[in-house]
């Protein structure tokens, strides 16, 4: 490795937030013309490090050199000026602006904001096969298109060092392949690509160099040609990754939930769900696969009584619950792990024991007649904290102070309380670390053995395949296929999810 070929060199980077050390002693060397993967668990400090490299956060210690020259990146403007571009995990796009407007924002001086910019966008788009239309509103774009727009934005600014923060988290397998093709072209054009991920298959597929982070620091590097997934996993977590494998079937003959031809329309008469029929038996986990935004959220909200279907019936056991409202459904024994725990599952600034009451405010042990049973709720919260291994200083801690995994374990514990007959789990392990993930899988499997019917919605295809007894694919509000998890591959599912042929 010669000195000229080093694009970025980080030495001894440290960053502290109040009460947390996000990064310490981070060393990272990225060569030009390579794809460099940075891997590590959630909370290992990858994102903070990237924000430092992009000038969003200022490091407390350490030095950054770009192309052999030490630089101070105080703002993203400094980073852009040094040829660093970043594609954030949560896209940094304004939905209500056009592709062109998002692209030229902050870089108006390069090619203006009119036809010259339009031509430049077309040029970049054609060069890398992005297929971007300058005058379309971003809200009309799908996830993969948005990501290509983000990459194009970086290129538009002339970046030679491109950071991608978990770019594959939102993509289906076919889209991942397309992204990797784009990345290889970028690499061949002489750019340095920093690829952040915790998906080891993908990393081994695309990377030229690998650096592993754990607990805020870099713990080692690996060569993707000689290393194995197992070795990477051990570097990342210190132990082999758990996998969500089901044991023998526990499916019974008793049907717990039936949807018959459920159709749901929005206020403008467009169908969000069309003729959805499914049934879940006791002891069965039904997985729903689909690209986000194809009706999963609406399906869950319909079952939970948050939306009333325009046509079709919903039965819980033998009872027709189509027009029941949410509280009655919950009292009838539906547990619900919402997809966004911050928006729907928790009051972040309320203590744990108050969060325990949420959604169960009419039931024992939380209520005594019309009054809240404070001591009952507190005692039961203590039980959940112990049984579900929620790591918290105490039950009076605000939910915000917990890590994502511990927040999720609290929700799982709460929803499993009071012996539910049906559990709706929407992305139950999204954004939680490997340890919490394994624990949550264990809880779902145990409940299944005890005869719980589970509707599992997830973007993690391995999770779906590993846990489910049956998998159905949802596409544009319709269930378009049923798969047996024992024989299906992620590629098959991906093809069905996008409505294409199997790759």
């Amino acid at each position, binding site marked *: 490795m010669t000195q000229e070929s080093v694009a970025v060199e980080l030495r001894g980077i440290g960053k502290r937030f109040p009460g947390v050390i996000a990064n310490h002693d981070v060393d990272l060397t990225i060569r030009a013309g390579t794809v460099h993967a940075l891997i590590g668990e959630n909370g290992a400090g990858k*994102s903070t490090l*990237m*924000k430092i490299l*992009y000038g*969003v*956060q200022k490091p407390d210690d350490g030095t950054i050199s770009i192309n052999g020259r030490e630089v101070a990146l105080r*703002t*993203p*403007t400094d980073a*852009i000026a040094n040829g660093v571009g*970043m594609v*954030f*995990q*949560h*896209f*940094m*796009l*304004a*939905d*209500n*602006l*056009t592709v062109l*407007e*998002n692209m*030229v*924002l*902050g*870089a*108006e*001086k390069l090619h*203006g*904001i009119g036809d010259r910019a339009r031509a430049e966008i077309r040029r970049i788009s054609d060069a890398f*096969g992005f*297929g971007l*239309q300058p*005058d*379309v509103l971003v809200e*009309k*774009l*799908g996830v*993969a*298109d948005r990501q290509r727009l983000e990459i194009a*934005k970086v290129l538009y600014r002339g970046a030679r060092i491109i950071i991608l*923060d978990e770019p594959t988290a939102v993509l289906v397998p*076919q*889209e991942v*392949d*397309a992204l990797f*093709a784009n990345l290889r072209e970028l690499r061949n054009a002489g750019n340095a690509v920093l690829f952040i991920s915790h998906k080891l298959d993908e990393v081994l597929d695309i990377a030229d160099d690998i650096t592993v982070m754990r607990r805020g620091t870099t713990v080692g590097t690996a060569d993707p040609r000689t290393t194995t997934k197992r070795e990477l996993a051990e570097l990342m977590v210190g132990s082999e990754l758990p996998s969500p494998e089901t044991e023998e079937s526990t499916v019974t003959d008793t049907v717990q939930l039936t949807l018959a031809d459920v159709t749901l329309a929005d206020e*403008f*008469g467009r169908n969000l769900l069309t003729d959805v029929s499914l049934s879940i038996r006791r002891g069965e986990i039904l997985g729903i696969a689909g*690209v986000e935004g194809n009706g999963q959220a609406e399906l869950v909200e319909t079952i939970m009584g948050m939306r009333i279907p325009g046509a079709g019936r919903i039965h819980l056991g033998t009872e027709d619950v189509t027009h029941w409202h949410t509280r009655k459904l919950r009292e009838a024994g539906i547990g619900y792990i919402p997809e966004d725990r911050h928006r729907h599952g928790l009051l972040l600034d309320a203590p744990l024991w108050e969060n325990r009451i949420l959604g169960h405010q009419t039931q024992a042990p939380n209520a005594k007649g019309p009054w809240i049973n404070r001591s009952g709720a507190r005692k039961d919260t203590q039980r959940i904290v112990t049984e579900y291994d929620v790591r918290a200083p105490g039950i009076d801690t605000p939910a915000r102070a917990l890590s994502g995994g511990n927040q999720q374990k609290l929700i799982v514990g709460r929803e499993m309380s009071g012996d539910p007959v049906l559990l709706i789990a929407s992305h139950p392990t999204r954004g939680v670390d490997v340890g919490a993930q394994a624990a949550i899988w264990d809880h779902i499997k145990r409940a299944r053995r005890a005869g719980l019917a589970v509707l599992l919605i997830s973007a993690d295809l391995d999770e779906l395949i590993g846990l489910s007894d049956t998998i159905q694919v949802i596409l544009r509000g319709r269930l378009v296929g049923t798969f047996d998890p024992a024989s299906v591959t992620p590629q098959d599912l991906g*093809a069905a999810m*996008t*409505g*294409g*042929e199997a*790759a």
Partner: protein
Amino acid sequence: MTTTTTTPGPVTRVRNAARANWLFIALGAVAVVSLVRIVTDTNDLTSVGTIRAAIIATCPILMAGLGGLWAERAGVVNIGLEGQMVLGTWGAAFFTYHSGSPWVGILGAALLGMIGGLLHAIATVTFGVDHIVSGVAINLIGVGATTYLAEATFTDLEGGGPRQLIGLPTPTTIDRIPGISGSAADLADKHWFFISDVASFVAALTTKISLLSLVIFALVVASGWILWKTSFGLRLRSCGENPQAAETLGVNVYLYKYVAVLISGAMAGIGGGFLALVASSGFSTNQTNGRGYIGLAAMIFGNWRPGGLLAGALTFGYTDSLRLRDTHAVHSLLLLVAVALIAITVLRVVRRQIAGAVAMAVPGAALLVWFLSTDSVPRDFTSMTPYVTTLFVLALGTQRLRMPAADGRPYRKGSAG
């Protein structure tokens, strides 16, 4: 690649369609008004005098709305517009009196409004105070400060008192434009269907109109151009849509928010200046009388866009001016609104929005019955009828409002990613 790519239609065609739609709506509105005028035999409904009064009533609302547009496009909710307007009324009077020039007075109004805006910007942008709380505080401060300042500075002046200052010079008035004013007025007097109504409008715009009104209309166009056609405007709007994204692209979000709120205050201040110098015979305390809020409402109904805001302000201004003309006109207004509601009902039935159609049909029918069964609107109602009916039309007629995505949300630097 088996990626899902959306295939959008040519956007320019959509934009042209939207423009044609606006023109269609405007012409339709004129036709409806014209029809009602002929049916009820209320020629005052579109007389030159009514339109002139409507323009004067519209201008302050328009400026308040424009102020709201600037701030909210940058993501700051400015309900302090009312207070900034009040400050503007005093500023206009004070600077006009001491300089002798109403234009200096208007600049003074803008300056005072800007001070109100600066307070709001410091509170909301720098200190992250809730925008509504800060806005309410500025409204209270505005009223209190002008009352105090008026008493302190106007009491001993000629034409002044503790609560007023009259006899100020006014901005230039364009008396007539030769060739247009006269013929348009003649045409308006013929009371023909549609043509005379349009002629009235032309006559009002070219005869005895304050230059400041024209400046205000120009400011609407200029604001639209700056916000949507310049890179400055793009950056400003990006702060209202996704400030984190703007930050990652090197936009100084705080700076743009400050600039936007200062301009917002200046606009509201000019609106206050118009009230003091053009719309009435001089300054008096609490002259704004809620116009700041109405401007904000017009902007919201106008979907945070200059064209829509202009339409909203014109509707408010028009109904407000009718109230001041005669009760017969207000009575005709009932039919006008009934017809408008029924027209929207039909539109919704065609689009198969049955619930929406019913929501429009019921008040429409009620107003029609009211109109047919009475000869006049009770005096107690006349003062509020315009507002109630305007609210009806705008609230029910507007669909799918789209506010800037990050409007009113706190933003902290370094929160991106």
